[in-house]
């Protein structure tokens, strides 16, 4: 019945009234109305309309049922129906009068209060869903099709408002149909409002009539803010329209900011949605490091969150500054600080890793600078438990787990933002004082390296056995720029061909080209920076008191704190109940490459730490000044960018409390906003979190599958090697290809995960299930549409496949399963007992495998040479480096340098002697290399403590400090041979991007090829030299390596070329490839790619050597990349200095 109005109306639209006399129309309309009125009056209660309305408006229409007198005969109802249909048609077709005056029909409608009476009639006939739909559609039609403005007239607008109010009240039980129509109507109204803001006044007034000084239209939309699907989208569009309106209408802005909960709702919505994200991602590959689109599109909760984040972005973009400021403040105070910060400091490595990956994804998703600023200021300035979030994140780069890899990816994103504030905190504040430079270096900061001496130095570090075509980049340019042989056509410029090594030759040109692009992009991006960072602007004196590392003690404390923090934040604190013999917590931790060794020394260490810690061992007192350092540091308090009256924050907290208790009481003046809270309360974020905390006392149940996936390898090292033999392309492929789960190896996992994850629950979409699921605090799995079972397959199984090169690793990726393990134990990790906590964590640091250990490993290798040789090495090395400076050193510099040099040699010799002594004993036993190495590692773990103290001793001698970020990056780089491919790609990628930055301070630091006078500042070059030595030494013992590496090199270059080719192809028909909706495993087949005919065969690399072989290749390629960047810097027209 109700549909007939609309349908009928539409049908009649095809008729035309053109040429019909307006008078006639008017008469017809009046006649119809007379008939309608007759029926209406027959059933109308005796009291006056206005009283009924007053009653109504106070009760949201819910009282409608109380005053109907009796059933209305169907024939009468349908008679009214028919008349109204005709009347509406006439009304819609009526043209406006002269000068915009009302047409006669509209005038009649207004005078007689036709719309209001019709609304009352619906109420009279029991205000059912159908009635609402009928009325809503009637207005939709009128609004969209009327030829004269209707909303200006109160008698039209008022019943509309009443209708909206009453629909809103019933919206929750409407099964969606009414909701959909309501939101659509609201959307229409917003469009009308934006088109003609003069109606705005009336909207406010009409609302006031009902006793609430609100902007009903807006309030009604708020509940749908976070809704998914079409309704949510329409509501958000409508809200955005109002937001853009607010930019020009201060009144709207003021109302929204002061009288509605729009901003808090948005922010708490984010919190709520965040809490329903999987707490840990079960990643399908050791190389996985960030959430690509293909990843997150498979997680509905994540998609949902990103939609809301997008919406926040959009609001920030278009809304009035006051709303924007408020929203950003709420996001900071209501999402980032209370939700994201704790999440970043959760207890297990997996959880922290997951949060880090989320944060990375968020940063990549935010398009609006203001919102990005809020996120960044949170990362840079917020302190969680007295530690800056950024510092914590930096420290995690060095964790050996996948967390380290994911953290690297996060920093890749950060570095790629070209954000001055980020770079200032990460890098520049340590470089501004210029402590790391000699006076001469400082003067030449701005000079460019005209003669490519840096590039030459980097290229000289190529492994000595490299085939000529690979290492001697100089020779190739002969062919490119000065071709021999006469009369080449222009188009032939790069068309020289040198047979097999063509790819290797042409490769350097690509690096130059890429470097050129990268530098140009960086230059443009940094144009708006506040300073040039060239050693003069900002002046070196301008160092900040809060910059750690201004003096040695500070630096020590800082590093110490960093380390302790990194542990503190990722450590699995064993709850008392878990002190049972079953090693529950350690398995969770062992997600790293080393996982293969079920009881590796490291894991044992981790366990021991906690055991000891709980006993509060005496050695716990380690670094008392920590606390003081904290308080001495006067940094900007983490103020939000635009501070707001604290009232909002208080309100917010109040609200949150109400929500948590589920006892929200409507406040009369915001009655419409109240609906919002029902919605939010359903999601019940806070409750869930509280419940989870409560439940945390239960024993931690861990998913064992991560540990299981690696077959027990003979040694730690070989496990690593076998795990990481993947090329970058394969990594990309593996991310892109589907996560079809493999059946092999699944059964075991299945039983494990089922047994360990406790009752698995299906997470239903929407908000409803969250709270219930969390109540018992049991860990459970959210399947995201997949089976609960975690299918993870050991990558070792795939190595054969990969060796063959072209085979797709479609089944290797396992499933992207997310185990949703609510075992947060925040209470335990946030000891508010300050000092104790620090002491404990320091103790942990002492015992623990930390960055320095990597360095030790590499320096140990030096120790194999007799010390005298070493001395000579260093002498000549020193001269060589001095000379590489180009200019003849001045006299005083020489004496300076020699002094430093002698000190350095002394220190190094001392260290080498000590290390050598250890190594001799360690290596004495091993007959084969693997054994030796294994032994070396184990003994290192044991002697960690002593060595670290030594490290500190030697570090104390160094004064300048280039910041933890640079140190951590360089230390990971130094470990190149041991790293996984993913880590190496990220580390070199980040360094290359840093090197592309145009700021002279950074450029000169990264491209400096001299040994710095100040011992203690390690430069990129020094680290590369060290890696070079490692490689040389490693290969010296293995004569078969050069050939192997070269072959693999050719293979990789060809594959890279092929990959580029494919990329180009895909960019044309990209939809097919990236479409995540394709059924499992079919993506590969769908690709119409050319055959991989030209690829040379990948050599059969022993699995345990794979990552090293690739690391060697990557090292050489990285040298080329750096050299190319250095060269392009020398010829770049720097736009930055021309401000």
């Amino acid at each position, binding site marked *: 019945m109700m549909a007939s109005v609309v349908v009928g109306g539409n049908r009649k639209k095809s008729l035309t009234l053109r040429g019909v006399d307006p008078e006639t129309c008017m008469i017809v309309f009046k006649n119809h109305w007379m008939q309608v009125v007759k029926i209406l009056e027959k059933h109308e209660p005796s009291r006056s309309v206005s009283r009924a309305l007053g009653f109504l408006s106070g009760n949201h229409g819910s009282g409608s049922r109380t005053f109907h007198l009796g059933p209305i005969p169907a024939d009468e109802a349908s008679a009214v129906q028919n008349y109204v249909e005709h009347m509406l048609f006439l009304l819609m077709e009526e043209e406006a009068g002269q000068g915009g005056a009302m047409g006669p029909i509209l005038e009649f409608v207004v005078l007689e209060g036709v719309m209001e009476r019709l609304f009352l009639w619906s109420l009279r006939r029991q205000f059912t869903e159908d009635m609402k739909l009928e009325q809503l559609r009637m207005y939709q039609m009128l609004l969209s099709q009327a030829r004269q403005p209707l909303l200006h007239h109160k008698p039209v607008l008022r019943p509309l408002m009443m209708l909206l109010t009453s629909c809103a009240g019933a919206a929750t039980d409407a099964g969606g149909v009414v909701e959909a129509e309501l939101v659509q109507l609201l959307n229409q109204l917003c469009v009308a409002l934006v088109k003609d803001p003069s109606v705005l006044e009336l909207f406010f007034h009409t609302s006031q009539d009902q006793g609430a000084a609100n902007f009903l239209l807006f309030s009604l939309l708020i509940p749908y803010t976070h809704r998914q699907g079409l309704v949510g989208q329409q509501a958000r569009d409508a809200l955005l329209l109002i937001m853009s309106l607010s930019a020009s209408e201060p009144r709207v802005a003021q109302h929204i900011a002061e009288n509605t909960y729009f901003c808090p709702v948005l922010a708490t919505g984010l919190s709520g949605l965040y809490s329903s994200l999987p707490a840990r991602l079960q990643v399908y590959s050791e190389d996985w490091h960030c959430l690509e689109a293909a990843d997150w599109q498979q997680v509905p909760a994540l998609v949902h969150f990103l939609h809301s984040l997008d919406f926040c972005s959009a609001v920030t973009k278009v809304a009035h500054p006051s709303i924007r400021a408020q929203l950003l403040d709420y996001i900071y105070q209501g999402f980032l600080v209370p939700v994201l910060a704790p999440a970043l400091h959760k207890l297990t490595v997996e959880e922290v890793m997951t949060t880090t990956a989320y944060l990375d994804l968020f940063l990549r998703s935010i398009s609006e*600078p203001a919102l990005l*600023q809020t996120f960044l*200021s949170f990362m840079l*300035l917020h302190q969680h438990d007295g530690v800056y979030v950024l510092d914590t994140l930096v420290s995690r780069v060095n964790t050996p787990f996948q967390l380290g890899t994911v953290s690297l990816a996060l920093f890749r994103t950060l570095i790629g*933002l*070209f954000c*001055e*504030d*980020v770079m200032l905190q990460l890098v*520049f504040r340590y470089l*501004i004082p210029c402590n790391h430079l000699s006076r001469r270096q400082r003067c030449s900061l701005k*000079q*460019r*390296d*005209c*003669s*490519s001496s840096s590039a030459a130095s980097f290229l*000289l*570090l190529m492994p*000595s056995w490299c085939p*000529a075509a690979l*290492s*001697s980049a*100089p*020779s190739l*340019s*002969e062919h490119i*720029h*000065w071709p*021999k042989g006469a*009369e080449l056509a*222009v188009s032939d*410029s790069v068309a020289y061909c040198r047979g097999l090594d063509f790819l290797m030759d042409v490769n350097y040109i690509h690096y130059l080209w890429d470097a050129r692009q990268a530098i140009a992009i960086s230059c*443009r*991006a940094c*144009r*708006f*920076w*506040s300073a040039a960072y060239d050693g003069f602007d900002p002046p070196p004196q301008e160092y900040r008191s809060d910059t750690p590392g201004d003096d040695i003690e500070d630096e020590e404390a800082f590093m110490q704190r960093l380390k302790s923090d990194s542990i503190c934040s990722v450590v699995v604190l064993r709850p008392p109940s878990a002190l049972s013999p079953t090693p529950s917590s350690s398995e969770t931790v062992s997600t790293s490459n080393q996982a293969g060794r079920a009881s590796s020394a490291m894991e044992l260490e981790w366990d021991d730490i906690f055991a000891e810690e709980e006993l509060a061992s005496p050695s716990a007192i380690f670094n008392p000044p920590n606390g003081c350092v904290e308080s001495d540091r006067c940094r900007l308090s983490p103020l939000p*960018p*635009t501070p707001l009256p604290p009232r909002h924050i208080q309100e917010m907290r109040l609200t949150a409390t109400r929500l948590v208790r589920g006892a929200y009481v409507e406040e009369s003046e915001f009655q419409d906003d109240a609906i919002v809270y029902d919605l939010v309360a359903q999601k019940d974020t806070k409750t869930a979190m509280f419940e989870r905390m409560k439940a945390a006392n239960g024993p931690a149940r861990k998913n064992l599958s991560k540990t299981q996936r690696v077959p027990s390898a003979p040694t730690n090292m070989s496990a690593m090697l076998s795990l990481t033999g993947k090329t970058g392309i394969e990594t990309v492929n593996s991310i892109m290809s589907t996560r079809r789960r493999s059946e092999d190896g699944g059964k075991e996992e299945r039983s494990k995960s089922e047994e360990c994850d406790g009752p698995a629950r299906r997470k239903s979409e929407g908000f409803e299930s969250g709270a219930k699921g969390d109540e018992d605090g049991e860990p459970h799995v959210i399947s995201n549409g997949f089976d609960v079972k975690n299918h993870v397959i050991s990558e070792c199984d795939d190595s054969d496949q990969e060796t063959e090169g072209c085979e797709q690793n479609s089944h290797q990726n396992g499933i992207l399963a997310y185990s949703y393990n609510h075992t947060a134990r925040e209470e335990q990790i946030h000891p508010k007992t300050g000092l104790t906590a620090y002491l404990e964590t320091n103790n942990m640091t002492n015992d623990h495998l930390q960055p320095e250990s990597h360095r030790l490993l590499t320096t140990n290798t030096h120790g194999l040479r007799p010390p005298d040789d070493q001395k000579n*090495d260093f*002498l*000549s090395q020193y*001269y*060589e*480096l001095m*000379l*590489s400076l*180009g*200019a*003849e050193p001045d006299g005083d510099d020489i004496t300076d340098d020699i002094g430093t040099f002698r000190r350095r040699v002394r220190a190094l010799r001392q260290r080498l002697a000590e290390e050598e002594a250890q190594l001799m004993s360690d290596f004495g036993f091993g007959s084969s290399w693997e054994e030796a190495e294994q032994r070396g590692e184990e003994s290192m773990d044991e002697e960690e403590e002593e060595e670290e103290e030594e490290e500190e001793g030697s570090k104390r001698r160094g004064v300048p400090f280039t910041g933890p970020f640079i140190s951590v990056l360089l230390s990971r780089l130094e470990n190149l041979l041991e790293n996984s491919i993913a880590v190496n790609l990220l580390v070199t990628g980040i360094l290359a991007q840093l090197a592309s930055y145009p700021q002279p301070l950074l450029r000169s630091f990264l491209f400096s090829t001299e040994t710095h006078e100040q011992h203690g500042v390690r430069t990129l070059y020094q680290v590369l030299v060290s890696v*070079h*030595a490692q490689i*040389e030494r490693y290969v010296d013992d293995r004569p078969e390596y050069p050939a192997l590496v070269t072959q693999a090199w050719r293979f990789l270059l060809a594959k890279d070329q092929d990959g580029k080719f494919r990329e180009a192809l895909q960019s044309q028909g990209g939809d097919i490839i990236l479409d995540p909706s394709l059924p499992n495993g079919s993506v590969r087949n769908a690709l119409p790619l050319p055959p991989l005919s030209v690829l040379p065969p990948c050599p059969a690399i022993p699995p345990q050597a794979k990552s090293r072989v690739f690391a060697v290749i990557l090292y050489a390629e990285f040298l080329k990349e750096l050299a190319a960047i250095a*060269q392009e810097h*020398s*010829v770049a*027209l720097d*736009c930055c200095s021309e401000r």
Partner: protein
Amino acid sequence: MNLNPFWSMSANTSRKRSDEEQSGHTDQRASPARTHFSKKVLPPIPKNATPFTKPALMGPAAHTANGTHASYGPFYLEYSLLAEFTLVIKQKLPGIYVQPSYKSALMWFGVIFIRHGLYQDGVFKFTVYIPDNYPDGECPKLVFDIPVFHPLVDPVSGELDVRRAFTKWRRNHNHIWQVLMYARTVFYKINTTEPLNPEAAVLYEKDVQLFKSKVVDSVKLCNSHLFDQPKIDDPYAISFSPWNPAVHEEAKERMFTHKRRPEDHHKGTQVSGLSWVKPGSTQPFSKEDGPPQS
């Protein structure tokens, strides 16, 4: 590619640079420098000369070669020259325009406008020849197309005596723009010691009037040959042609109206950086409120 470039187009450097990058080939028949660089076989980098493992080899080798790395190949040379050229652009030398040859980065065409002094109104075309072991070799040569009457210009070859200013070419200290600057200076400040053109030197000392008139003649001669075909056949050689509105008006128009901005070139890959640092501050997010950087 503009085969007959309007002279001022040499200022359009960035475009030239990219052109030139792709164009290092073709024959070098007319290039005097050809014999030097096209046959040169460069010493390869010693295979084992990585500084830390075999320093004994490296140290002395580096010593012998003028205190620098001995083995800079044309690969480095290319970038050294590009860097030099970039420096020239940045110097914005008054009245001097140069442009590397199409055929060789070691040969630069140039023209110098003298705006006052004895040589006022002189427009002198010249060519710079850079040694192929740059920057470790001799200083570049600068040869005027037509020998200008000047004590320091060889009356036969037209070569300017550059070496007196750069007795020893020091890498990282000496740059090609300094040579160009020097070439400009000699026309404003006459030096007669050890002249290449003794006649000019003597006249300047003894009979300035005659010297002046000879200079005027020389300037006239040079200017009368301005529209000649370039001495060296090269697409990038600087050539002059009489004012032709059909050809030049548009270029002039563009020169005066078009402000080249870096972003004009790369609209597609625009990446805007972010900064909330207040100028003069080293604190993050120190900018007061202010709309975020766009």
